[in-house]
């Protein structure tokens, strides 16, 4: 082509300014480039309930709980450096508190869920507080222990319905409230966390992950900051638990089931650690998949393992990190 020289240029090059999360936009096209993925995610989540039938709507609700747990897991592991396998404890704490408030005091779920979210997070943080000095695998092991240990305490003391659990808890008004409550919670916590990690407190969290001794040498009490991070993650997890007990109208020992600790990890690895969106995506893929394979019974666990191994070996960055990288590599023709 004579007179009209063109060259390929990456879309993101022209809008990135020096540092992460700061852009210079000069056209609607560029703005759309940034907004589109976020819009697709939000609208996609919000439209999902409209196209599903009754059965899959219930699946969506439980997938949402796993998505919240995965989000919290990813935040703690990648942005604070705490690999927390205590997801089931968050669910159990939130679920039991909310369920008990409803069963014994007759509080409506609209009151018991928020209270259980906060109270559960406070309890989870206090219980994990002595372990926050531990790093890496040691913290992971100790956090994994808490849900198991809670189960035996409940059985041994014969409280809270013991092995039977308590049934006939109040449900949420209808299936639409149930779905949009959890989807709203996911969108809210996702965008809140994405904002948080670039704030000063998020920078301190990241520094603790990179080098905790240096953070101490800068005069900051790392235990306090780790506790804040655990509190944030357990708020998200305990909301999931409180919601779960009212979703099923039942509370029992299976709220402390190992699934709640393990599946979020699989979801995070599959979706892409450190992207925050990825784990949510992973949970929304893995939970329906496991539902569809219900006929295989316990063999489903083998499938999880295969997926986990497959992703770790062949796509260690995970789905979302891969897609994000490809998205930023989109090129367009520009006149020279």
């Amino acid at each position, binding site marked *: 082509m004579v007179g009209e020289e063109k060259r390929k240029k990456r879309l993101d090059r022209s809008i990135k300014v020096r*540092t992460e999360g700061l852009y210079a936009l000069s056209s609607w096209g560029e703005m759309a480039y940034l907004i589109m993925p976020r819009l697709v995610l939000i609208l996609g989540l919000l439209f999902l309930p409209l196209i599903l039938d009754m059965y899959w709507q219930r699946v969506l609700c439980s997938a949402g709980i796993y998505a919240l747990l995965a989000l919290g897991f990813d935040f703690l592991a990648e942005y604070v450096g705490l690999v927390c396998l205590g997801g089931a404890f968050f669910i159990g704490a939130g679920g039991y508190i909310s369920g008990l408030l409803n069963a014994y005091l007759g509080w409506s779920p609209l009151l018991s869920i928020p209270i259980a979210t906060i109270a559960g997070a406070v309890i989870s943080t206090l219980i994990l507080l002595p372990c926050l000095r531990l790093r890496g695998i040691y913290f992971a092991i100790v956090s994994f222990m808490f849900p198991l240990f809670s189960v035996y305490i409940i059985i041994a003391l014969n409280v809270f319905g013991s092995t039977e659990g308590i049934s006939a808890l109040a449900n949420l008004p209808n299936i639409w409230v149930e779905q949009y409550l959890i989807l709203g919670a996911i969108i809210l916590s996702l965008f809140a966390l994405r904002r948080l990690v670039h704030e000063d407190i998020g920078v301190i969290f990241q520094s603790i992950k*990179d080098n905790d001794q240096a953070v101490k040498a800068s*005069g900051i009490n790392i235990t306090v900051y780790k506790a804040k991070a655990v509190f944030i993650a357990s708020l998200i997890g305990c909301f999931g638990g409180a919601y779960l007990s009212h979703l099923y109208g039942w509370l029992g020992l299976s709220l402390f089931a190992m699934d709640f600790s393990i599946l979020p990890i699989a979801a995070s690895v599959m979706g892409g650690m450190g992207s925050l969106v990825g784990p949510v995506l992973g949970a929304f893929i893995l939970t329906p998949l496991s539902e569809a394979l219900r006929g295989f019974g316990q063999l489903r666990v083998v499938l999880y393992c295969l997926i986990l191994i497959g992703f770790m070996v062949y796509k260690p960055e995970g789905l979302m990190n891969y897609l994000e990288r490809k998205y930023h590599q989109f090129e367009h023709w520009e006149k020279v």
Partner: protein
Amino acid sequence: MHDESILRVENIRKAFGGVQAVKDVSFSLSKGEILGVIGPNGSGKTTLVNLITGFVRADSGNVFFKKRNIIGIPPHKIVNFGLTRTFQIMRPYHSLSAFKNLIVPLNSPRVRRTRSGKLGDIDAVAIDMLEEVGFERDARVPYKAAGTLPLGYLKRLELARCIALRPDVIICDEIFSGLSMSEITSLIPFLEKLQMEGTTMMMIEHRLRELFKLANRLIVMNFGEKIAEGIPVEVIENQEVKEAYLGTATS
């Protein structure tokens, strides 16, 4: 001199298993001076720093900072009193950009207390501070991830993280090691300026020639003990110091 001392270490001891890493070391640091600490490898210099700053718990002994005994106080609190350190093995937050590395000290209780909410744009303050220690003020360097920076910058970053706290005492653990001559010569005026502004410094060093330009006083360590103390020219003439560095005359 003792009335003026800002930091006083008394008979501090530490053993790791059977190894007596620091043995009854005592010295004091006067306000505004630069004290050099030298000694062969493994003589306990870094352990001494760790003991003073609370990163390692001392077996016995006392450390007085501004007349307060700081033994047993956790390191992050000691830093907030105004006693800071750099690390011999640099510890940048490698995934964060250089200026974001300074967000951490700028959020410490010590800085928050003094700025009392009117610091303005904290990122701009961080970039100013990097310029102060010799980062180019351009569109790239301060925004690069710390993990990708060359050694010279990392040492400056390490120093900048201390300066950000506006400390009374800085303990520099081998800030010159691994740097080229030109990098060192550009760092020296900065350290001199810090001293003029009233910052007291304790410098652990192996680069003796550069240290002698700066230090007002020296202490020499060998096998965990303080073997000499005095002004630089005297200390290097000391027989015991020569033996520690070069071996005994008979061998």
